């Protein structure tokens, strides 16, 4: 019954990694819906969160600050970088095309990666887990049976990542539905004209949206790096996977981004488990194969397909 254990194990790692994809995808979604800009620097916020967590916790620099100080600092630094990027993007004339703004985000991504490579070197770096002790191995079989059928061990950091994703989703839902600023952002997303005319300062709100998505990305980075290790270039892959999830979920679709992000993590991890070892390096291609398939079948994301079916039935 080893394969059941293995599958469950992959499923858990997949959900954990997928949770970070989901958070990055949500970052894309928030920015895209308020600006029509795809922010290709989104993954760099994950890198900033991971690398600053490493930088301030490891001894090389004489710092050994506890994580409950370090992670908020990493998140705050990333939020400021996001704010600056938002500010830069809001500078050009109102009629600047989204394409030229997207190119600016690509530039920002290259720049941030360059700075990180210079500062922290090219090697993978360790980031400590939020809590040192892992829970005892979980045995799902024991619930139904008196034996040790399907032992699965869960790292505490995996629980942290999943928990953070759930909290973030709850927090964002409250933010967008219960607060004035959240409502204003939704208004900007659907009708900038109408929003401006009721006195909403669209550029300021968009800068805030950038700060928010940057903070979320950094949190995801600080949380996943203890599992995946940190690297100056990790943002590129994170950004691409989060982008794939955002597209698969239907760009601009909140729930779609979350589901697609988690699904992508699971498919990728489980897929890698079934591949023969010599193909293991193709694991990262998985996200893009899925992305291509979805774009062929339903260019507006998997949920558009589902909605179309429902509409036909109705």
């Amino acid at each position, binding site marked *: 019954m080893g394969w059941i254990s293995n599958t469950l194990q992959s499923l858990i790692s997949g959900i954990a990694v997928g949770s970070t994809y989901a958070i990055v995808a949500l970052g894309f979604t928030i920015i895209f819906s308020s600006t029509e800009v795809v922010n290709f620097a989104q993954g760099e916020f994950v890198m900033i969160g991971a690398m600053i967590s490493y930088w301030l916790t490891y001894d090389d620099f004489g710092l050994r600050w506890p994580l409950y100080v370090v992670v908020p600092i990493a998140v705050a630094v990333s939020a400021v970088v996001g704010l600056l990027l938002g500010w830069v993007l809001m500078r050009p004339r109102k009629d600047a095309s989204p394409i030229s703004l997207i190119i600016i985000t690509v530039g920002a991504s290259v720049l941030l990666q360059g700075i990180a490579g210079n500062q922290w070197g090219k090697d993978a770096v360790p980031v400590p887990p939020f809590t040192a002790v892992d829970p005892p191995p979980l045995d799902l079989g024991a619930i139904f049976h008196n034996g040790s059928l399907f032992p699965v061990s869960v790292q505490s950091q995996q629980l942290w990542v999943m928990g953070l994703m759930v909290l973030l989703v709850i927090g964002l839902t409250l933010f967008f539905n219960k607060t004035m600023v959240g409502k*204003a952002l*939704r*208004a900007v997303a*659907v009708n900038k004209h109408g929003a401006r*005319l*009721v*006195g909403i300062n669209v550029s*300021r709100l968009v800068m*805030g949206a950038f*700060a928010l998505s940057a903070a979320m990305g950094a949190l995801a980075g600080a949380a996943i790096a203890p599992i995946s290790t940190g690297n100056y270039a990790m943002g590129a892959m994170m950004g691409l996977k989060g982008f794939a999830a955002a597209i698969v979920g239907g760009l601009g679709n909140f729930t779609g981004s979350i589901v697609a992000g988690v699904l992508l993590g699971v498919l990728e991890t489980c897929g890698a488990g079934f591949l023969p070892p010599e193909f293991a390096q193709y694991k990262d291609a998985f996200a893009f194969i899925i992305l291509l398939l979805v774009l062929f079948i339903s260019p507006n994301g998997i949920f558009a397909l589902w909605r179309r079916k429902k509409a036909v039935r109705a």
Partner: protein
Amino acid sequence: MTPLLHVAHLRMVFDGLVAVDDASFDISAGQIKALIGPNGAGKTTLLNVISGLLTPTSGQVALADKPIHGLPPHRVAALGIARTFQNVELFPAMTVLEHVMVGRHLRSRSGFFAAALRLPGMRREERQIHLDAERYLAQVGLSAHADDLARDLPFGKQRLLEIARALATEPKLLLLDEAASGLSTREKKELVNLIFAIRDIGVTIFLIDHDMDLVMSISDEVVVLDHGEKIAEGTPHAVQNDDRVIAAYLGEEPVHA
């Protein structure tokens, strides 16, 4: 007395097309003033300039002596000009109450980070905003629809919602772009009552409409635009008997509907 709104030598040119040509007029506080003219005369463009959506090619707009031309729309709104659109501009997937709450955004203090962190003072303010929003909905008679989505409202009620959202910004001057078009006779009557009620709480009104009966019966003064140019201004009676106005409307629609 200085007028509430002063428009002087306003010109708006789009790639060679002169949409508004040297228009000048004043709106006094407390007035209901109308802007009429054939289709394409430049009426909406004029409203777009006043509300900050367009920067005029030349000329001035001043609100209570303060120049406002060229200011971004949110600043103009903050200074006290609200408007509705010829084609309603709502937030389709938001509720009726949320629309009016968004209108209150301008008059609320809480910033982005206070909201993101859910600071306690904010919750109190949000409750207040909620109450205010309900008051504005009651004013236009939409209380029963507070929780409906805007896109599910019948057209006439969408227009009322736009007015409620505009009122929530506490304007000194309310610009209504064809607020009566597409309304039934009964809805028009209700709209006229609402316009008078809004005037009576101290809001000055500048409205565009094609329904001459409606315009002539509620306005204190009328400005007539043709091909971007002001061709007449005065009381409804004077304007209706103006030769240039009659000529401009020949072949369009009769001034006396």
